C-alpha cells in the first residue's frame, strides 16, 4: 500500500526536481541568492496545489518558484486576501462559487477569453461557469472539479445504504459520523436530504428552518469536526465510519492507499465542487501566471490534477480525459472518467443528479456560518 502511494508521490520527473532541490539545499548560504534569480509566484489555494507533484515540472521548465499559502473554504480565502496588501497574490485558486465575490470585491484581474481553449471542455456548463463571466468579461477559468456525496467505510455502511444521506442517521454510526468543518458542503447535503434537489441553495424561511432541524437531528451522530488532515486520518484509522461534507477528493486518496472507504452520489443528488484559477489584482507576473493556467488546462496539467497527491479532481477537458485514459487507465476507471461508464461524472451532471455548490441565495453566508457554530456547540 505504501509503495503504491509512494509511486504516485514521487514520479521520476519530480525526482529530478528533488535532486536539484536537494543539491541546492546543501549549499545553504547560497540558497537564498540562487532563488532570488527565479521568479516567485505567490499562490493562494487549497492545500496541495503548490506542491512539487503539481508545479514541479512547470517550475523547472520556466525557472519560477511557487510560494503557496493554503486556505480551507471560500470564507477563509476571502479573509486572507482582505488582510494582505493588494497585489500580494499572483494566482488565486478559488472555489467556483466564490469567484463572484472575488470579482465584486475587486480582487482579481479580467482575463482574455482567447487565451483559453473553451471548446475542449467536457460540458457546456464549464465554458460559462456561473459567476466566471460578468458583463461578457471573463474573470476566472475552471480547471478541475469533483463530486461530493456519501463518504463511508465499507465495513460499516453497505453500498445500498450509502445510496441515501439517511445512512448518516444509522444507529450504529452514533458518534462515528464526521463533518468536514465547513458549513457549505455539510448544510448543502442536509438540504438535499430534505428533498430540496436543485433548489438546495435557494431556501425560503420555512425550508431553511427545516434544514436546520434536519441538521440538528444529526448532532448526536456527529463524532467530530475536522479540517483536511483530520478528515483523512479519522477515516483512515476508523475513528469515523462515515463523513458528511466530502467526497472522492478525500476518500480517493485513502482508497489508493488501501483503506476500505468509498464515496457515492446518493439518490438525493450530489454536490459539485469546482476549482477555478484567477489572476490576482495588481499582480506583476500576469504573463507567467497565464502560462501556468494554460499549462494546467493542457492534457498534461489535467492528468496532474487528476492524480494530485493531495486530492484528486476530474479532468474537465476532452483532451485531458483522453490523456488520463492513456497514462492511468486505473485511476480513470476508478473515478468513472471513461466515456460510457454509468458513473461518468459528466453523465451524472447531464442526468441532473449533480448540483453545483453555491452560496446561499436567501440567507447570507454569515447566517449559515452562524448556524454552523451553533450546531458544533449543540
Amino acid at each position, binding site marked *: *500500500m*505504501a509503495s503504491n*502511494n*509512494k509511486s504516485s*508521490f514521487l514520479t521520476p520527473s519530480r525526482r529530478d526536481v*528533488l*535532486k536539484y*532541490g*536537494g543539491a*541546492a*539545499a546543501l549549499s*545553504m548560504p547560497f*540558497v*537564498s541568492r540562487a*532563488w532570488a534569480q527565479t521568479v516567485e509566484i*505567490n499562490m493562494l489555494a487549497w*492545500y*496541495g496545489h503548490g*506542491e*512539487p507533484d503539481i508545479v514541479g515540472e512547470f517550475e523547472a521548465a520556466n525557472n519560477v*518558484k511557487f*510560494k*503557496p*499559502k*493554503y486556505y*480551507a473554504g471560500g470564507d477563509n480565502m476571502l479573509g486572507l486576501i482582505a*488582510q*494582505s*496588501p493588494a497585489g*500580494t497574490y499572483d494566482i488565486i485558486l478559488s472555489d467556483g462559487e466564490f469567484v463572484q465575490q472575488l470579482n465584486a470585491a475587486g480582487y482579481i484581474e479580467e482575463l482574455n477569453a482567447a487565451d483559453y481553449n473553451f471548446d475542449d471542455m467536457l460540458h457546456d456548463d464549464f465554458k460559462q461557469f456561473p459567476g466566471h463571466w460578468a458583463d461578457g468579461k471573463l474573470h476566472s477559468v475552471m480547471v478541475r472539479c469533483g463530486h461530493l456525496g456519501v463518504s463511508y467505510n465499507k465495513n460499516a455502511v453497505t453500498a445500498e445504504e450509502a445510496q441515501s444521506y439517511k445512512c448518516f442517521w444509522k444507529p450504529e454510526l452514533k458518534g462515528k459520523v464526521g463533518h468536514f468543518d465547513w458549513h457549505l458542503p455539510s448544510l448543502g447535503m442536509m438540504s438535499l436530504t430534505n428533498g430540496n434537489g436543485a433548489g438546495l441553495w435557494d431556501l425560503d424561511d420555512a425550508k431553511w428552518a427545516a434544514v436546520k432541524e434536519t441538521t440538528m437531528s444529526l448532532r448526536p451522530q456527529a463524532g467530530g469536526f475536522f*479540517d*483536511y*488532515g*483530520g478528515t*483523512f*486520518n479519522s477515516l*483512515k*484509522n476508523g475513528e469515523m465510519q462515515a463523513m458528511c461534507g466530502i467526497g472522492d477528493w478525500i476518500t480517493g486518496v485513502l482508497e489508493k*492507499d488501501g483503506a476500505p472507504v468509498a464515496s457515492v452520489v446518493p439518490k438525493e443528488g450530489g454536490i459539485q465542487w469546482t476549482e477555478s484559477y484567477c489572476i490576482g489584482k495588481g499582480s506583476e507576473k500576469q504573463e507567467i501566471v497565464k502560462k501556468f493556467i494554460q499549462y494546467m488546462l493542457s492534457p498534461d496539467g489535467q492528468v496532474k490534477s487528476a492524480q494530485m*497527491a*493531495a*486530492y484528486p479532481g476530474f479532468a474537465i477537458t476532452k483532451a485531458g480525459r483522453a490523456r488520463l485514459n492513456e497514462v492511468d487507465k486505473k485511476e480513470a476507471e476508478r473515478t468513472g472518467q471513461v466515456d460510457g461508464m454509468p458513473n461518468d461524472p459528466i453523465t451524472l451532471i447531464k442526468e441532473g443528479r449533480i448540483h453545483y455548490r453555491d452560496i446561499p441565495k436567501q440567507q447570507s453566508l454569515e447566517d449559515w456560518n452562524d448556524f454552523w457554530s451553533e450546531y458544533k456547540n449543540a
Partner: protein
Amino acid sequence: MTLERGLTWFLRAWVGVVFVFVFTPIIFSLIFSFNSQRFPTIPLGEFSTQWYETILADRDVWQAAWTSIIVAVSTSILATFLGFCTAYSDYRYNFRFKGAYLALILLPPTIPLIIMALAMLAWFSRIGASGQVWSIIAAHTVLTAPFAMAIIRLRLSQMDDNLEAAAWNLGASEWATMRHVVLPFCKPAIVSAACLCAAVSFDEFAIAWFVSGLNKTVPVVILEIVTGNIDPQVNAIGTFVFLTSMTLVVAAQLLFIARAARGMKQGAET
C-alpha cells in the same frame, strides 16, 4: 517505617509514570519518522528514511528553515538586548511606576498565544506590515524578552552591589563601568538568554501562523502539514526542530543555567 519506605518507592514509581507520559509522544514521533506508512498505525510498517528524503529535498522546507533561522537569530538579539536593559533598570534603579514598568515586559507570556496572534495580525495589517518577516520578529521579541530579562536579572542579583560603586570611586564613568564590569559579569547570562530566546522563537507556531503570510517558518509548515495533507514528514521535521532547539538549550545550560543554580545554592547555604 515500612509504610514510609513503601511510600518512597511509590513516589519514585510515580515520577517514572510521569516521565513515561511526557516522553511517550516524543519517542513515538521519532519512531513514526522512520516508519514507511503514510498514516502510521500499529503494527508498524517497515523501516524507511523516505520522510527525511522528502523533507531534505523539499525546497519549501529549506526556505522555511532559513526564515526560521533569520527570525530566531534576530529575535534572540533584540529580545536579549531589551531583556538586559530592563533587567539592569530593575536592578539599578527605583523609580515611579516601576510595578507597571515590570508588568509591561513580564505580561506577554501570560496572554494566550492565540490572542496575541489575533491582536498582532490585526495591528500589523492596520499599519500595513502584515506578512513581513520582521513582523514575526517583532512579535517573537515581545514574547521572549521576559525570559531574557528573568535570566539576566537572576545573574545581576548575584553581583556584588558595591562592585559598580567601587568602579565609580576609581574614576570610571557609568558607561565604562557598564562596559568593563557589568557586561563581562553578565556575559554567560546574556549568551544563555540569547540561546533560550532563539529556541522559543524557533518553536512558536500560533503567532507565526497568523502573522507570517507567505514567509512561513518551520512550525508553520508543520501546522500546514498537520491541517493539510497530513503525513509523517511532520515527525521528520519535528526531529530536526528538536535537534536544533536542544543544541541551543544545551548550550544555554552549559553556559549558564547550571552555573546559576550552583551560585544560587551557594547563596542559599551561606
